[in-house]
């Protein structure tokens, strides 16, 4: 191709805004803990990974996964025996969150109450 993409020589990447890593405090509501007991059973070797992806209507989307390990650089918080992993890259967005569970037919499920969110989209999966 004839545009010069600079991929053959060393071109420095643009300066990325890298947020500071913060020590995350988080809580899990009693309803969410009940649901985690259902999900995990007696196996406490698994962990709940609470991450953030770009996208969604408001710019960031929550990403909840049950994992054994992850290759992301994470900090681990243990609450009532549950291991919760929070990626350092998104720690500034997740400090102070409450993991809750909303029990209803439509739009129910795990929900994050986030004091850092200026706004959230209607479905609650995305925040800014």
């Amino acid at each position, binding site marked *: *191709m*004839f*545009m*010069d*993409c*600079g*991929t053959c020589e060393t*071109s*420095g*990447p*643009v300066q*990325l*805004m890298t*947020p500071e890593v913060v020590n995350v405090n988080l809580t899990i509501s009693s309803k969410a803990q009940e649901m985690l007991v259902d999900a995990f059973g007696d196996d406490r070797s698994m962990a709940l990974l609470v*991450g*953030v*992806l*770009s*996208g*969604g*209507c*408001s*710019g*960031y*989307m929550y990403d909840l996964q049950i994992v054994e390990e992850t290759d*992301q*650089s994470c900090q681990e918080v243990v609450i009532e025996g549950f291991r919760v992993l929070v*990626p350092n*890259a*998104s720690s500034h967005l997740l400090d102070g969150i409450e993991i809750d569970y909303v029990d209803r037919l439509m739009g129910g499920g795990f929900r994050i109450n986030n004091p850092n969110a200026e*706004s959230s*989209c*209607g479905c609650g*999966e*995305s925040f*800014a």
Partner: protein
Amino acid sequence: MPRVAYEDASLTVWQGADALQFIDGLSSNKMVDMIQGEVRQTVFTTTKAKIVDLATVFHMGDFLAVQLHTSQLERLLKHVTPRILDQKVTIVDVTSRNQFCIEYGIHNTNVGQFESLDGVTHGHVDERYSLLIASLDVETKPTVDQALFHEWRIENQIPWNGFEVTGKNHPLSAGLNQLVHPAKGCYIGQEILARMISRGRQGKKLTRVENNSVDEKFITTQGQSHSLAIIR
């Protein structure tokens, strides 16, 4: 075919396994199904659906070449880079290695594809014009001046960066409706644009008007007899 210099163009290279998904999640057009050899435009928007920048994405196989605008580049990077988080995306600015032209007044039959002709990459982004990018050692002399090009734009109601495509407008009012995908997943600004479309309430829209027929404050590109305006 007439060629005009595209002076505000910039070129960035986006690499990493998550690059295409990342762009898709932050802009209005569906990008995740792009394949090598395709070129597609999309609009990065704010949570209020205002335009951050219009991007032309060339899928080069191992990476994406993304044409943006120098005047908007800093704003765009401030918008996107905090959202990279742990995703595999790196961005390199290679603007200074390239030159940019628009070839217009043509009839592209292969819209959405790009090809290399005489050392120049031709991105066929629209039936009526192509975006040309070449390294600095290739001759791509413009054949017409900006005024002629803008007269042609007015005639064909083509929005342009800095005129209609600005941070004051959303993609629908700027005449970029074809870049707002009706069925893709969520992206920043999507709720507002989807509501406008579903309720048929787009507000202002890009219109070709006779000079002196509308208030000057609505004119976005001034021509000799006609102009482009964004009006209700």
